[in-house]
């Protein structure tokens, strides 16, 4: 599994799992229809509590990233099927961006540099997506 936990990040463990699955899905490392490990297997592999693994999957399911099929396991959903309204999606992303802005302030990174950095990372991300698409 591609999930790397960091207990020193201060980010709740279930969120770390959810964020990394989303990152893998967004970059194409995980594709629609791909099976994910069962809650128990995930818990065992990451040495985390079953409750935490289940909470991560519940979060991903509520965001429409994956679906739990009774009896057969857990699968990545096709993108674009987010059940959340656009306003809710914007609000969620907005909160994440606020955190980035606060962090940039603390690191004394100016607005222009922050915008440039965002463009750079976006370009990088799209590049990786294209590469995976070709392979």
């Amino acid at each position, binding site marked *: 599994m591609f999930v790397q*936990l960091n*207990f*020193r*990040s*201060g*980010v*709740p*463990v*279930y969120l770390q799992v959810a964020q990394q699955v989303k990152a893998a899905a967004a970059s194409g490392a995980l594709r629609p229809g791909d099976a994910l490990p069962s809650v*128990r297997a995930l*818990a*065992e592999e*990451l*040495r*985390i*509590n*079953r*409750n*935490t693994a*289940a909470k991560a999957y519940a979060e991903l399911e509520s965001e429409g990233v994956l679906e739990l099929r009774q009896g057969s396991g857990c699968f990545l959903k096709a993108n674009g099927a987010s059940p959340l309204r656009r306003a809710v999606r914007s609000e969620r992303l907005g909160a994440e961006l606020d955190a980035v802005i606060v962090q940039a302030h*603390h690191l004394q990174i100016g607005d222009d540099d922050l915008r440039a950095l965002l463009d750079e990372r976006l370009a990088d991300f799209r590049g990786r997506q294209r590469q995976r698409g070709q392979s």
Partner: protein
Amino acid sequence: MNTPAIEVRQLVHRYGRAEALQGLDLTVEPGQCYGFFGRNGAGKTTTIKCLLNLLRPHSGSVRVFGMDPRTREAEVKTRLAYVPDFVAFYPWMSVREALDYQASFRGHWNRDVEGSLLRQFQLDPAAPTSGLSKGQRTQLALIGAIAAEPELLVLDEPTSGLDPLVRREFIQTVIGAYQDAAPGKRTVFVSTHLITEFEGLIDRFTVLDQGKAVLTADADEARAKFRRLRARFEGDAPAESEFKAAKSVKRDGRSVELIVNGNGDELMAQLRAMKPTEVTTESLTLEEIFMATVR
């Protein structure tokens, strides 16, 4: 609200004049994996003995599934399994016989769980228990505890004295197997001073020090609050007395290290205002939080 699996209020117990427990409060909700952290002698085993009616507290109340273990001992004991830090079996029994013997006291026994864990731990059912290593004894005791599928699993120092490489693995296996069925109903209460092994397993914990709960928190919440801030300065670092709001301060020449509890943002701002050349922050692990909390 569900009835807590364990509820302890103002528990006091003395051995002679020594106060082992000095007004302990503890609430464990069903389905949680709860860590009970303390040094040797902090009162962990005394607390567990009160839960099992092996000791009568001097004052305070103990409830397990809402019942008083002193008056409803049999009912309490059918719903939990307890694995002590030192496990003994009748030496003339084989692994198979020891499990059958335990099963004979239980109303319920899951043979599938028993069989799959015996295989995973590579324990030979025909082997005599007298020839088992300390680790294998603990494995056998854990299999017996889990096969009974109790609502509450009480583990007292389950990994102490075991090979560090092995113990992390098998505690994970056992707790994973136990909580796999009926999630939300299977509660684990684990007492330990070896906290690193349980870092990812613990939902919530209490740090016990000198018979009192000195910290109770969700693991995620504790890691978010307890942080280490480090700053380096061009010249000498500010004096330790500048950081009264920190939990602890270590100053060494041009650098300073603060441990903070919940007020990391304010102290971070204070540090930045002092124009350091470099500042970093990271969360503490549960073990470090424990170390920062006990005296």
